[in-house]
């Protein structure tokens, strides 16, 4: 048992080292050397990380999770390592799609669809639009060098250490103790709430009863954001002649 724990710790350390090195090699640092090595190292790190995770028990769920998780991780790393921001945005779209798949597997059908519609359909497309407006030729120098070699290395190490620490903590949990404390909670909540029939009806019922005030606040927030965005964009624009005339013809301070 102790020997097994040692193997897991070594695996985790190897995953951290290879992951940090691989991501550092993949990120834009000015030259393109070592990208294939970086891809290989990051793939090894992902494989080690996946091997550390416990089995779910049902092979269909396990295989689906592996496919979606690996696609999510690959697309996420590709998003931050692409030199052209257009490619970054497209890879981020793939990340959103696989995340929606993870939501569907977890019994959150509405959120999966909402992620695709709101994120991939609206936000991402709007940002691609701005990208094409601002930087139509792509390939700017600041996409090729970022902040230099050393800050990139430290950022990669810090990010990988977060994942490594969390994995260490999670895989060493005493699962039985957690299970017992949660079993009572599940009984209290009513069994099969999330996976029961009439998903939308139950979700809407919960949203508009228990979280009604939050819905109101969210609506207000959307309105405020709309007004704020318009206010930011019209800052610094010359007032039109008709507006100036209405104000008495004087120079405006806008």
């Amino acid at each position, binding site marked *: 048992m102790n020997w097994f724990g040692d193997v897991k710790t070594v695996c985790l350390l190897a995953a951290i080292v290879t992951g940090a090195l691989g991501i550092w090699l993949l*990120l834009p640092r000015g030259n*393109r050397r070592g990208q294939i090595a970086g891809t290989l190292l990051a793939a090894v790190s992902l494989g080690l990380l996946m091997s550390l995770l*416990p*089995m*779910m*028990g049902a092979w269909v769920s396990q295989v689906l999770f592996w496919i979606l998780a690996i696609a*999510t*991780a690959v697309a*996420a*790393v590709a*998003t*931050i390592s692409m030199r052209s*921001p257009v490619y*970054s*945005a497209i890879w*981020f779209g793939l*990340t959103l799609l696989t*995340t929606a798949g*993870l*939501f569907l597997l*977890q*019994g959150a059908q509405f*959120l999966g669809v*909402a992620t695709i519609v*709101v*994120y991939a359909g609206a*936000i991402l497309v709007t*940002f691609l639009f*701005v*990208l094409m407006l*601002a*930087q139509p030729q792509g*390939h700017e*120098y600041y*996409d*090729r060098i*970022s*902040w230099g070699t050393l800050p990139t290395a430290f*950022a*990669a190490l*810090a*990010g990988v250490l977060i*994942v490594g620490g*969390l*994995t260490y903590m999670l895989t060493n*949990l005493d699962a039985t103790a957690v299970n017992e404390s949660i079993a009572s909670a599940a009984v209290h909540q*009513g069994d099969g709430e*999330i996976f029961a029939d009439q998903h939308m009806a139950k*979700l809407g019922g*919960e*949203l508009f009863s228990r979280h009604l005030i*939050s819905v109101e606040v*969210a609506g207000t*927030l*959307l309105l405020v*954001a709309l007004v*704020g*965005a318009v206010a*930011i*964009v019209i800052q610094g624009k010359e007032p039109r002649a008709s507006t100036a005339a209405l104000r008495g013809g004087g120079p405006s301070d806008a």
Partner: protein
Amino acid sequence: MLNEVAVLQNYLVIGAVLFAVGLIGFIVRRNMIVMFLCAEMMLQGVSVTLVAFGRYHNNWGGQMLVLFIITVAACEAGIALALILMLFKKSGKLDIAFWQDMREAGQPPFVDRAIPEERAEERVWPRLTPAGIEPQVDEVEKEERLHRSRV
């Protein structure tokens, strides 16, 4: 029968991966739009975590929070879009390092040590597959098109 604790652990780790990769990208990248995409990726990681917890506890709390996260992300996208457009109008580029004049007094400025030249083979664009054959247009039709009403 699924082992619910194992399911939770798997999904928490993939959520952490998304968050950490977004964090790395936010720190490392200098393009403002890519930085924004990385911030959204961090939100996605948190969403995966919340949905996993909601499934584990078998209640709607996690999904409700994610619903509101999506709302706030939409607001954030609108504001960020306006800000990025304003900054781009003032500086002419999407580089966040252009705005380092706003740093604390007494801090040394960040200077790029060497800007690498772009090589010709890096100018790669996605190639669209041709959709169908270009129709043949004879001279008479060309003439007719020239005088056709544009409404």
